[in-house]
């Protein structure tokens, strides 16, 4: 088991290294002087010189890369171009907002998705199953930023029930929760459909297994079969998919953050990208990738640990 975790972690570090390399290459492929791009055409030569020295841009490319990797290994993501604050601090400031949004979306989507999936299985082949299927597939198909826009339009602009902007004042839990409702609705809706379909498919597969026939041959009730046996097997089958899904949810809340002008990793990446704030781009993207990769490892380790067959094989 330990070996398995170590191997997974090594792969994760390799992925992050590759991502850093890709980012580095992208920034150097971008035409024009990065200094001018960053500081704008009106900057004075002195400013540019100082900027180059600060960013290490006056050194050879390989040196810069080496420096970057050394700094990354030390956990130093560099300084923001504009505010000169450490990027890591800035990222850590907004990270809770993104994690809160992802968690909120995920929790309600998982709960509703599980219930819908189970209900569909119980009504397998009847109209209830069909209806849940149709609703689920529609939820998946509708783009999340359109959901975000329309919920903003209806609940914030027209009805004025919920805030349209921001994440609520720090310290005001009620306001923060209210500010979370619309974004997490928009982000989670697709996942409701996704999870309910996953659960349904996995459970129907589980219900077709031979051992279910054994349980039935002993008069064990359908409820017990569904909730104690099929659901466990289904959850095991979809656990890794869901964990990886959570990872992509962390990176995928960018639309909700922009539409609702909510602080977060996605919004920060977007602003950094638009303003060519390369150290910040590097920092946010690396942190996002790291979160994603961590979820990937967690998914693998969790499902390996929960499945007795895999657990004994590794």
């Amino acid at each position, binding site marked *: 088991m330990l070996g398995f975790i170590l191997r997974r972690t090594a792969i994760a570090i390799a992925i992050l290294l590759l991502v850093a390399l890709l980012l580095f290459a992208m920034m150097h492929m971008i035409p024009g002087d990065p200094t001018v791009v960053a500081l704008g055409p009106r900057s004075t030569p002195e400013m540019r010189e100082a900027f180059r020295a600060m960013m290490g841009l006056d050194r050879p490319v390989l040196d810069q890369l080496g420096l970057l990797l050394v700094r990354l290994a030390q956990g130093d993501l560099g300084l923001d171009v504009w505010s000169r604050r450490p990027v890591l601090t800035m990222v850590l400031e907004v990270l809770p907002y993104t994690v809160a949004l992802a968690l909120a979306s995920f929790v309600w989507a998982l709960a509703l998705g599980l219930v819908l999936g189970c209900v569909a299985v119980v009504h397998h082949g009847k109209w209830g199953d069909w209806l849940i299927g149709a609703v689920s597939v529609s939820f998946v198909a509708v783009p999340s930023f359109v959901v975000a826009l329309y919920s903003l339009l209806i609940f914030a602009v027209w009805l004025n029930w919920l805030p349209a902007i921001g994440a609520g004042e720090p310290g005001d839990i009620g306001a923060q929760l209210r500010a979370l409702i619309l974004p997490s609705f928009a982000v989670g809706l697709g996942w409701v459909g996704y999870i309910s379909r996953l659960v349904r498919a996995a459970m129907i597969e589980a219900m077709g297994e031979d*051992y279910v026939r054994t349980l039935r041959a*002993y008069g064990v*009730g359908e409820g017990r079969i569904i909730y104690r046996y099929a659901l*466990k097997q289904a959850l095991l089958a979809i656990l890794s998919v869901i964990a990886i899904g959570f990872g992509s949810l962390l990176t995928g809340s960018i639309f909700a953050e922009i539409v609702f002008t909510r602080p977060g990793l996605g919004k920060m990446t977007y602003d950094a990208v638009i303003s060519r704030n390369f150290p910040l781009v590097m920092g946010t993207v690396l942190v996002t990738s790291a979160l994603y990769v961590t979820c990937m490892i967690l998914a693998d380790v969790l499902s390996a640990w929960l499945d*007795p*067959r895999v657990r004994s094989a590794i």
Partner: protein
Amino acid sequence: MKPPVLKPPPVNAPVLDMHNVSVSYGAHVPAVLGVDLTVRPREIVGIIGESGSGKSTLAHSVLGLLPKTARMSGERFMLAGADILKADRTALAALRGPSAAMIFQNPMTAFSPIHSLGRQLTDLLWRDHAQSGAQKRARIVAALAEVGIPDPVGRLDAFPFQLSGGMLQRVAIAAALLMQPALLIADEPTTALDVTMEAQILHLMRSLRERAGVSILIISHHLGVIAEICDRVAVMYAGRIVEEGTVEAIFRDPRHPYTQALFACEPALVPTGVRRLPVIAGEVPRPGGRLCDFAARCAVKAARCLEQAPPWTRSGEFPVHHVRCHGSALSGNVPSGRGS
């Protein structure tokens, strides 16, 4: 012990009593036609047939384990005093276990791969609410020991993949025994096992009849298995029972041309030194023909076989022996129907 759910059937009344039972999938795909079959207490009855003969459908119909599209009909279908044809879903579920328990062909998939064996066996005892976990545990350990599983306590925490096929089939038999069923249905119980394990499992099943007094209905395509364990045999072909009698009667003096041909093909019965094995030419027809289903492949068919359905005839006083054939019924002694 658990309260009696059902009125105990009269002593020596058949455990399973089927008369003219038919099963079809949907409205138009018959699988089993007009089957008469009885299993008496402490009796081991075998059903032998090739693929497509309907033997598995017949076995599954006893517990109502057929797919939803299946339709059952018949004059009488009694299991341990309960009427299967009139039973609804809850009544059927109540019969499963105490009235009849079943073991399946592939022991490797008969248990959930992600639950421990102890957990699964405990769940099968769901009826015994009154008993504590420790009591159930003790019963399970006793049953596992009874079927010859070494270290039964340790096996409670084991998962199915940690046991061999033979061991799992023993666990399946132990699960059936926990129910103290009136009838044990075994659907090809040794087909997935190695031959040395097959001999041990057959021996175990036979000894259980002696010790626990359980009746057994065993389904197999293997003549050797049937001969090893059964008291009485029914031969199925295209959904119908074509011959039925004591195992001695069938194996000493098979009357139906199909049974005869089947015996002729059995490699173990082909004399040493013969290199070419006999076969039955042609293909098994779909069940549901109105005349003799075997006529197209029969070496001794007469004109009459293509005109009227063969009667179900008693063909001997002792041992009791029935055949569904024109030739054997009338002449009592037909020439061998062995194929090429």
